[in-house]
């Protein structure tokens, strides 16, 4: 069962609508048991990093997430803030710890007159690796929808699968084993996004 994790932040409905459109059953969950018996996990997110970690902690979801992903090998897709939560730590707020599933830090974009923050709109996603399963059947430099002021810098280049330009080149997608992340919102990226979600569900 595809599970969308509800920790009080994030546009769950849009993700659910996308899964419905693609013909996949899904459920919205917020407890440890359901996390452990999912076949796929989606961690959406809109808002502040520290609030997200506090919410995840309060709902006792951090340990089950770690177990599901690292011990049980359940594929997980972090979207937007959800991808940032995979990191070790964020510069945002009180420098709180993330899930540390992919080592690295989350940093804020610098203010720039030409490249406005928050980065809001469709932008090109450029593959660093050309054969990642998440982007199967998707053309390089395809447009996806972004809305964020922070970006994730993984420690290991091997975990970076795509980058996007907005004043600087920042990481727009990550993958480490069964852990996937997209800085952009595939559920808001028309057919390009639906294709990516379909790929994630079908990953072996």
């Amino acid at each position, binding site marked *: 069962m595809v599970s969308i994790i509800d920790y009080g932040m994030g*546009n769950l*409905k*849009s993700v659910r*609508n*996308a899964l*419905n*459109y*693609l*013909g996949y059953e899904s459920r919205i969950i917020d407890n440890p048991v359901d996390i452990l018996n999912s076949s796929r996990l989606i961690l959406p997110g*809109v*808002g502040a990093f520290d609030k997200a970690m506090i919410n995840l902690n309060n709902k006792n979801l951090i340990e089950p997430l770690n177990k599901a992903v690292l011990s049980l090998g359940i594929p997980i897709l972090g979207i937007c803030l959800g991808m940032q939560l995979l990191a070790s730590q964020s510069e945002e707020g009180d420098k709180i710890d993330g899930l540390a599933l992919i080592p690295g830090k989350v940093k804020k974009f610098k203010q720039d*007159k030409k*490249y*406005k923050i*928050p*980065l*809001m*709109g*469709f*932008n090109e996603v450029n593959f660093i690796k050309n054969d990642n399963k998440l982007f199967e*059947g*998707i*053309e390089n430099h*395809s*447009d996806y*929808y*972004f*809305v964020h002021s922070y970006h994730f810098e993984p420690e290991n280049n091997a975990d970076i699968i795509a980058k996007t*330009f*907005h004043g600087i080149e920042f990481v727009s997608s990550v993958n480490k084993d069964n852990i996937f992340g997209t800085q952009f919102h595939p*559920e*808001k*990226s*028309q*057919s*390009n*996004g*639906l*294709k990516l979600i*379909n790929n994630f569900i*079908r990953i072996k």
Partner: protein
Amino acid sequence: MVKKRLIFTLLYDLDNFMLSRNFRLQKVGDLSWLKEYYDFNSITNSIDELVVLNVERNKDKNILKFSENLSVLVENCFIPVAAGGGIKSMDDAYNILNAGADKLILNTALYRQKNLVREIVKTFGSQCLVASIDFKNENKEKKIFSENGAFEEPLSFKEAIINAEELGAGEIYLTSMTKDGTGQGIDVDSVFEATTITNLPIIASGGIGNFKQIFEVIRVNEIDAISTANLFNFMSDALSDARLFVEENGISLAKWQDVKLVKN
């Protein structure tokens, strides 16, 4: 660099979708009309963003009903959605966001309920707030209006824009009431003037009748987006033709692969 946006605005009044001229409304059809004649699902494949405005001519708009209908409308809509019209409380804001909107549109509240606007920004973030500013431009004199154009606000064009920025808006949806529904094209001079007053992204609205006009506005460096609410001129292929025209003339817009390729 983010791409420029072609936005479609749906004007909604209780159960019906409307056409507007100088802010006077004419009923066009309901949701099933929209889906039948307008093939809504294919339209959304050729726009970057959808705006749904509740233009009910009532002091207390039925936000609950609006939210219910919004939720049905955007079910197969996989692009950012901004919605509003008559938002007067945090409850209204929550209802609309829970119905599937990504951003809230506020207009009258910018002048009458500044604390609400600040609270919305604090709770949901600036990127969630689109400040809608309606203006009339007659004899080179610009006036600002609220309440669906019914009430003239005592502040200048410049003051209204700065007000929106100071309240924390993420972008400005700027509509010329004078040009609205006329098909005469956008008031480019006024929109351009707005870009010199603020750095916030500006969505130009009011007056679009054909895709040449779309191009004329979107080619201006400083203008980020354009919106049309013209249900007739932009049926079926017209919006994707507009995108093609803009592309052929050198402005890069977002592109999406054929929906048929999506499922394996």
